[in-house]
C-alpha cells in the first residue's frame, strides 16, 4: 500500500513536472485543430490568433505560437473586405512574425508569412503599391525557396499569385501550373519536423490544380 502510494505520488509528481511542455503541445494542438473552423469567420480568426499569442507570450522562447498567430492575422488581413483596415492588421501580423524570426532566424516558413504580409498590403492598392510590396513579396518567396528547398509552401504561394495574374501579363493557369505541380511534388515528400510544425496548404494546391484543369 505504501509502495503504491509512493509510486502514485511519484507518478503525479512526474506528470506535474512534465506538464508545462505537455501543456504547450496540448494547447498548440487544440488551437491547430481549430484552424478549419476558424477560417470561416474573421472573428474566430482573431480569437485563434489571440490564443496563439497568449501561448507565445507565456512561453517566450517558442517561435511556433508567434508564427501561427501571425499566420492567423495575415489570413485575417486577406479576408478583411474593408481595405482601409488591412494595413493595421498587416502591421500586427508583421509585429508577430518579427518576433518569430528573432527566435528562429532564416526560417523558410517565416519567409512565407512575410511574403503573404507583403501581398496583403499590395492588395490594398495594387496600382500604387506594386513597386514596394510586389517586389518585397517576391523577394520573401525567393528567400523561402532558398532557405529550405523541400518546403512546398513558397511554390504554392508563387503558383497562387500567378494563377490570379492575367495571362497577358505572364500569369494564368499555364504559368501557375508549373509552380503548383512543383508544390504538389514537394508536398508528397514533405514531413513536418514535428506535429506542431507547419503543414498547411496541400488541399488549397489541389483545389487550384483542379480549377486549372
Amino acid at each position, binding site marked *: 500500500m505504501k509502495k503504491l502510494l509512493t509510486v502514485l505520488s511519484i507518478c503525479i509528481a512526474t506528470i506535474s513536472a512534465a506538464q508545462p511542455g505537455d501543456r504547450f503541445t496540448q494547447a498548440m494542438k487544440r488551437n491547430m485543430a481549430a484552424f478549419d473552423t476558424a477560417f470561416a469567420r474573421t472573428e474566430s480568426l482573431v480569437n485563434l490568433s489571440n490564443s496563439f499569442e497568449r501561448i507565445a507570450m507565456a512561453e517566450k522562447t517558442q517561435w511556433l505560437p508567434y508564427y501561427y498567430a501571425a499566420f492567423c492575422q495575415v489570413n485575417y488581413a486577406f479576408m478583411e473586405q474593408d481595405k*482601409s483596415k488591412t494595413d493595421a492588421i498587416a502591421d500586427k501580423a508583421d509585429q508577430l512574425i518579427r518576433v518569430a524570426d528573432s527566435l528562429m532566424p532564416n526560417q523558410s516558413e517565416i519567409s512565407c508569412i512575410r511574403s503573404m504580409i507583403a501581398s496583403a498590403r499590395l492588395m490594398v492598392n495594387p496600382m500604387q503599391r506594386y*513597386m514596394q510590396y510586389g517586389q518585397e513579396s517576391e523577394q520573401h518567396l525567393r528567400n523561402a525557396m532558398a532557405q529550405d528547398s523541400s518546403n512546398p509552401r513558397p511554390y504554392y504561394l508563387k503558383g497562387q499569385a500567378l494563377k490570379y495574374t492575367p495571362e497577358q501579363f505572364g500569369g494564368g493557369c499555364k504559368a501557375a501550373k508549373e509552380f503548383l505541380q512543383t508544390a504538389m511534388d514537394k508536398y508528397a515528400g514533405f514531413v513536418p519536423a514535428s506535429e506542431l510544425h507547419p503543414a498547411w496548404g496541400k488541399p488549397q494546391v489541389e483545389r487550384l490544380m483542379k480549377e486549372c484543369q
Partner: protein
Amino acid sequence: MAHKILLLLVGIYIHGMAWSQVVISGRMTDQKNKPLAGASILLKDTYDGTTTDSSGYYSFSTYETGAHILVASLSGYNTFSKGIQIGKEPIKLDISVKELITELKAVVITAGAFEASDQKKTTVLTSLDIVTTAGANADVVGALKTLPGTQQVGESEGLFVRGGTATESKIYIDGTLVNNFFFSSLPGIATRGRFNPFLFRGTIFSSGGYSALYGQALSSALILESKDLPDRTEADLSLSALGIGGGIQKLGKDKKSAWGFSYNYTNLALAFALIKQRQDFFTTPEYHQGDANFRFRTKSGGFIKYYGYASWNRTGFRFADLDSLGVKNAFGIENLNTYQNINWRENLGRRWKSYLAFSFSTNKDDINNDLQDGDNKSLSGNLPSWLSGKQYAVVTKSRYAQGRWVLEKRFSGLNSLRIGADHFYSREQTRFTAFTGQQFTEVFQDNLSALFAETDFYITNQMAVRLGSRLEYSQLMKRWNIAPRASLAYKFPDNGQASFAYGLFYQNPESRYLPTVNPDLGFARAAHYILQYQKISNQRTFRAELFYKDYDRLFKTATGQNGRQLVAGNNGYGYAKGLEIFWRDKKTIKNLDYWVSYSYLDTRRDFLNYPGSIRPPFASSHTASLVLKKFVLPWKTGFNASYTYASGRPYYDLAFDGSQNGFVIRDQGRTIDFNSLSFSLNYLPNLGKQNKKTFLVWVLSVNNVLGQNQVFGYNYSFNGSRKEPILPPSRRFVFIGCFFSFGVDRTQDAINNNL
C-alpha cells in the same frame, strides 16, 4: 483499496481543479465608452485569456490563484495592464483604454495641397499619372494643369495659380529652390520643364496655404522629392521623332547605393518638317541634356543624394513685326544651364532627424533680336525709335546658391516639430547691347535668409493643427518679414475631412524690374484663406475648395531711363477668390480611370504698369478638365485622353499716355474660349513575355486632336493700330517614340500600374 485511494486522489485532484476555477469577466471600451471588439485579454505569463466579443464583453476562467497581471491589448489603442488578486470569488473588471493617434487613422492636413506619391494614403495622383496624362507630354507641370487651380496659359511657361502670375509659383527639388525649372522663355511660346518626371517619387502641388518651410511665392509651391534608390539596375534607350537619349542606373549589390547618368539629344528638325510651324525657324531647336547622380544609405540609416544636371540649347525663329509691314524680328537664343543638388538626411537619435541640403545653379542666356527685311537681311541705317528698340542683344549670366538645414523632432502620436534655416544667394548680370552698339551692364544681387518653425499637433485622431511661421530678411531691400501659417483639419466618422488653412506669403520683386529707384521698397504680400472638404474612399476621390486671396503691396512699375519698366513702389493690390472641384473615380466603370476638375476664379489686380484694378490677362473665369485613362489588356495598350476648356481671357492694349504720366487701356477685349482635346497611347508589345530582357514602350501622342482654334491673347503695334492674335506654334502636335529598358523584365510594373 489501492483503487479506491487512486480514485479518491484523482477525485480530489479533479474536484480541486474545478473548485479553484475562477471566472474573470468584464467589458472593454474606449474613452468614449464605445465597445472594443477583438481585443486580447490575458493573464500575463499564463495561457489563460480570451478575446472580447462584438459588444466588448469578455469572460474566461482560470485555475491560477494569487497575484497576477491582467493585460488587455488591441492595436490602435493603449495597452491596459493591472495587477489582480485571484481568490475564490469571480472577478469583474471593466477596462477603458485610450485610442492611439496613428498615421493609419489620423486626419491629414491637406488644405491647398495636391499630393502625388506612390505610398502615402491621401494621395490624389501617383507618379505614373503624371507621365500618362494625355496632353501633358510627360511634363510635370503639364499634368498639373489638369488639376483645379491652374490656368491654361499657352503663350508662356509656368504655373499660373489662382489669379497669380507664373513667377508667384516656386518649384523646389528636395527642399531647394530651382530658379530655371523651365527652359528659357521664348516670345509667345511656352517652354517645357527641364527635368524628367521619372526623377521624382513624390510631388506636392500646393495651390495655396503651403508650409512655412517654403517662402518667396505669393501663390503656389510645387515641391518635388527625388527618388532614393532605383528599384534595380537598368539601362534605358529612347528613340523618337524628336531625338535620342539613353542612360544607366546601377544599383549596388548590397542595395545601399546607386549611381547613374543619362544623356538626351533633342532636335526638332524632323518634327518641324512634318508639322508646319507658324514661326519661321532659322535655327532649329536643339537641346543637349545630361545628368548624373549618386545616392547611398549611411551607416545610421540616413541617406545622401547628389543630382547634377547640365544642358545646352539653342533656338532661332523669325516672326513678323507688328509695327512695320515687311519687317521681321529674328529672335535667337542660346542657353547654358547647370544645376547641382546634394542633400543629406540623417537620424540623430531620440527621434530627431536632420535634413541638410545645398544647391548651386548657373544659367546663361544669350539672346539676340535682329530686325530683318523680306529677304531676311538685317535692316540698316537710321531706324525710328519704336523700331530700333527691337534691335538688341542681351547676355544674362546668373548664379544661384542655397543652403538649407531642417531639424525634425517626432513626439509621441504623430506630433512633430520642424525648425530650420535657409540662405539663398542670387546674382544676375545682364549686359544689354543696343542698336547703337552702346552697352549697359546691370548687376543684381541678393542674399535672402530665412528662419522657420512648424509644428503638427494632433489633438485626437479626428483633429489636427499645423502652426508655422517664417522669418525672412532680404539684403536687397534691407527688410524683414514674418509670415505666419496655420492649418486645421477635422475628420468625420465617414472618413470625409474638412480643412482650413491661413497664411501670409511674401515675395521679392522679379529681377527684370530691378534696380528700383525706391529705397523704401518692401515685399509684396498675399494672405490666403482656404476651406476644403475632401473624401477619399474606395478608389474615389472628391474634393472641393473655396479660397480667398488678398494681395497687398504688389509692385508697381514706372518707366526707367532706357524705356524699361522698373519697380517704383508697393502700392499695387488685388484679390482672387473662387471655388474648385475635383472628382476622380476608378471604380464606377470597370478598367476606366477618370478625373474631372473645375475651377471658378474671380480676380482683379493693379500691379506693374496696369492703369488700375483689372482682371489680369492670365485669368480665365472658368476652367475645366476631363482626363481619361484606360488600359486594354488584350491589346497591351493604354489609351489616355484629356479635354480641357477655359473661358476666354481678357486682353488689353496698355499704352503710355504722357498727359497722365502713366499707362492707359487703349483697347481691350476677350479671347475666344480655349478648347483642347489631347490623346495618347502607350503600346507595350513585350508585356507578359516571360524572361524577356528588353522592355519596350511605344508612345504616340497628339495634342489638340480636333485642331480647335486657340487664341492666347493679342499683341498690339506701338501705335495701337494693328493687333495680332497670339497663337500656338502649330495647330496640332504629334509625338511618336519608343523607349527601351534593358536587363530587366518590367512586366510586373506594367501589370500593377495598369490593373
